[in-house]
C-alpha cells in the first residue's frame, strides 16, 4: 500500500542520526520554552528561524515542528505545577491539573497529561498521513480563484477564533495584509509603502515582524507588573497512574483526540479551541461533574489529548495547501521559503522525503517527549525557579542576533523595535496579533491570486462565484462570518475566551 511505503520513506528520513538529533533538540527546546511562562513557541521559532538557514531543509523543519509540539507538552507541566499556563493552549489543564497537584497527585497529573498527549499524537500523526495525500490531489486542481477563496476562508477563520472583538480582528487582518504588501510590486516593480527606504524594497522582514509583535510585546507585558512565581513544590512522586486512573482517563483521551484532530485542521488556532471544547464536553457528559475544578482526571486527560492532537493536525493545511492554520504554521511557511521550498500541494510530490519525513518525525518526537519528560520533570521544575528578570535580557539578545542573521540587514533590527512597540500597543488596545500575522503572510499571495484570477476572467469578478470550488469556499467563509456575528454565538464566544484569561 502507498501509505505504508510513504511512511517507510518518512521514517527512514526522520530516523537518520542527524534528523533524530535535531528532532531531540527541537522537542527539548520546545519543552523548555513551554515550561517557562512568558515566552511562547511563536517567539522561539521566530528567533530560531534564521539559524535554521544553515541546516538541511528537512532537519530544520523537523526541529521547528519539534519545538511546536514540545511546547504543548511543556506548557502543561507549568499549568499543573504553578497554575499558570506555560502556553495558552494548556490554560484549561491548569484548572484541574493544579488541583490534582494540590491534592498531592502532581506526578499522576503529569503522567496522565504525557500519556494522553502521546496517544493523541500517535493517532493524529496517522491522520495527517492518511488525509494529506488526497487533499493534495484536490489542491492540485486549484486555480488562482480557488486559492484566493481558500485564503479568504483562512483569514475569516482566524478572525472567528481570535479573542475579543470581531471587528478588531477583521481590522487586524486588513492591517496585516497591508503590511504584507510593503515592498516592490511584483508586476510593475513599483516600490510600495517603503517610505523611500531602499532596505524595505524586498518587503518587511517576516521574522522581524513576528519577533516584534509576539516576542517583544510579550516581554513588555510581563514587565508591567513583575510578580514572583510560586512553584508548588509538592514532591512529584508516584508518576504512574493506578489502574483506576487508567480506566478513568481512557474515554476522555479518545474523545479529546477526536475533538482535537477535527478542530486542529481549522485555520486560526485550533489547539486552544480544542482544549476548551474537550473540557466542556467532558464536564457535560461526566457522571461526576462536581469533581471538575477539584482535580478531575478527565479534566486533564481530555484537554491535554485535544491540544496535542490539534497541534499535529494543524500541519494538514500547511503541508497540503501551503496555508498556515496559526502563527506557528505561518512561521513554518517562512522557514520553507527561506530554504527555497514553495509551500503548497507540490511539496508532497516533489519532495516526498521532506513531506513524509516531517510527518514521521512528529511521531518520533512524541515518543521522545514521553520517554524524556517523565524522568526530566525534576529538571523542568528547577527551571521554573529562574526569575524572569534574568530571562528577558537573554531573550532580547537572542532576538537581536536571530533577526540580524537572516539578511545581515540592520534595518530589520529597527523594524523589530518598531513592531515591538506596535505589538505592545495592540495588546493594550485589546487587539489580537494572530490575525495580523496571518494577514501579513497571506497578503502578497492573496493579491497575486486576485490579480491573476481577474486577468484570467477578463475583469469579471463573478469568476469567484461561478467556479464551484471557489464558490463553496466563499460560502464557507460567509457562513463563518455570519455565525460569529450572531448574538447567541457572540455571547458564547465571549464566555469561552473570558474563561481563558
Amino acid at each position, binding site marked *: 500500500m502507498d501509505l505504508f511505503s510513504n511512511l517507510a520513506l518518512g521514517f527512514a528520513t526522520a530516523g537518520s542520526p542527524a534528523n533524530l538529533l535535531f528532532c531531540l533538540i527541537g522537542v527539548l527546546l520546545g519543552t523548555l520554552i513551554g515550561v517557562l511562562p512568558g515566552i511562547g513557541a511563536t517567539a522561539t521559532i521566530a528567533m530560531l528561524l534564521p*539559524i535554521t538557514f*544553515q541546516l538541511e531543509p528537512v532537519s530544520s523543519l523537523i526541529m521547528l515542528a519539534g519545538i511546536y509540539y514540545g511546547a504543548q507538552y511543556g506548557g502543561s507541566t507549568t499549568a499543573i505545577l504553578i497554575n499558570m499556563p506555560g502556553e495558552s493552549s494548556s490554560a484549561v489543564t491548569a484548572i484541574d491539573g493544579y488541583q490534582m497537584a494540590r491534592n498531592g497527585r502532581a506526578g499522576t497529573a503529569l503522567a496522565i497529561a504525557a500519556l494522553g498527549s502521546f496517544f493523541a499524537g500517535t493517532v493524529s500523526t496517522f491522520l495527517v498521513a492518511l488525509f494529506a495525500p488526497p487533499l493534495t490531489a484536490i489542491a492540485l486542481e486549484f486555480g488562482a480563484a480557488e486559492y484566493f477563496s481558500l485564503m479568504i476562508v483562512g483569514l475569516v477563520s482566524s478572525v472567528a477564533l481570535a479573542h475579543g472583538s470581531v*471587528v*478588531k480582528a*477583521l*481590522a487586524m487582518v*486588513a*492591517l496585516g495584509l*497591508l503590511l504584507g*504588501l510593503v515592498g516592490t*510590486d511584483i*508586476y*510593475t516593480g*513599483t516600490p*510600495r*509603502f517603503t517610505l523611500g527606504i531602499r532596505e524595505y524594497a524586498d518587503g518587511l522582514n517576516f521574522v522581524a515582524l513576528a519577533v516584534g509583535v509576539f516576542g*517583544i510585546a510579550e*516581554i*513588555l507585558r510581563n*514587565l*508591567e*507588573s*513583575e510578580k514572583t512565581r510560586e512553584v508548588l513544590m509538592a514532591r512529584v512522586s508516584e508518576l504512574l497512574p493506578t489502574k483506576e486512573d487508567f480506566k478513568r482517563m481512557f474515554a476522555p483521551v479518545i474523545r479529546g483526540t477526536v475533538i482535537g484532530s477535527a478542530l486542529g485542521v481549522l485555520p486560526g488556532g485550533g489547539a486552544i479551541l480544542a482544549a476548551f471544547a474537550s473540557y466542556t464536553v467532558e464536564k457535560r457528559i461526566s457522571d461526576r461533574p462536581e469533581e471538575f475544578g477539584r482535580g478531575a482526571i478527565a479534566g486533564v486527560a481530555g484537554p491535554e489529548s485535544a491540544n496535542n492532537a490539534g497541534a499535529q493536525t494543524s500541519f494538514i493545511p500547511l503541508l497540503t495547501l501551503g496555508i498556515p492554520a496559526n502563527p506557528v504554521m505561518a512561521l513554518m511557511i517562512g522557514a520553507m521559503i527561506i530554504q527555497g521550498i514553495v509551500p503548497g500541494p507540490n511539496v508532497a510530490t516533489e519532495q516526498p522525503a521532506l513531506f513524509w519525513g516531517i510527518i514521521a518525525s512528529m511521531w518520533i518526537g512524541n515518543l521522545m517527549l514521553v520517554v524524556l519528560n517523565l524522568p526530566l520533570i525534576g529538571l523542568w521544575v528547577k527551571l521554573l525557579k529562574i*526569575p*524572569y*528578570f*534574568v530571562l*528577558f*535580557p*537573554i531573550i*532580547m*539578545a*537572542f532576538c*537581536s*542576533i536571530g*533577526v*540580524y*542573521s537572516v539578511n*545581515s540587514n*540592520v*534595518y*530589520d*533590527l*529597527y523594524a*523589530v*523595535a518598531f513592531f515591538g*512597540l506596535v505589538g*505592545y*500597543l495592540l495588546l*493594550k*488596545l*485589546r*487587539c489580537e496579533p494572530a490575525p495580523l500575522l496571518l494577514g501579513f503572510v497571506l497578503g502578497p499571495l*492573496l*493579491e497575486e491570486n*486576485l*490579480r491573476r484570477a*481577474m*486577468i484570467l476572467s477578463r*475583469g469579471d469578478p463573478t469568476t469567484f462565484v461561478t467556479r464551484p470550488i471557489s464558490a463553496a469556499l466563499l460560502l464557507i467563509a460567509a457562513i463563518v462570518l455570519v455565525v460569529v456575528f450572531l448574538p447567541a454565538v457572540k455571547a458564547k464566544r465571549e464566555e469561552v475566551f473570558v474563561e481563558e484569561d
Partner: protein
Amino acid sequence: MKAISFDTTNALCGSILTAVGLFFAWQSFGLEIGTAFRMGPGYFPLLLSAVLTLLGVVILVQSARVHGEPMGPIAIRGMFFILPAPIFFGLTVRGLGFVPAVFLTSLIACFASHRMKPLWAIAVSLGLAIFSVVVFSYGLNLPFERFGPWARF
C-alpha cells in the same frame, strides 16, 4: 443633552486604525490604480485601506456605547530600555563587532527590570556574550565579525 462618554481604549484603537487606513489610502493614490481587469500596484492596497478605515470608524462609533475594562498599567520603563536594545545592536554590530554588541544589548535590556541588580546585570550579559560567541560564531559559523573596527586597538 447627555454628555457622550467614550470607552478610551476603543476610541483610541478606532482613531489609530482609521488614521493608519487613511495613511495607506493616501499612499495608494500615489500609485497607479489600474482597472479591475488589469490591476495596478495601487488597486488592492486601496481596497484594503478602505476596509481598514471603515473598520476603524466602526470601532470608534462603537466605543461610544460599549464599555470595556481600563487599559491597565503601561510598562514605561520596559519600553524605555527594551525597545532601544535591538536598535542599539543594529547600530553597533558592524562597528564594535558581535561580542561587544551582544554584551551591551543585553546590558541595556537588563535595566528594564527594577529588580535586576547592576552586578547581576553585568554577570548575565557577560555569560550571554560568551555563550553566544561560542554557539553562534564558533558553533554555527554565522558570519559575524567578533570584534569590529571600533573595538580594535
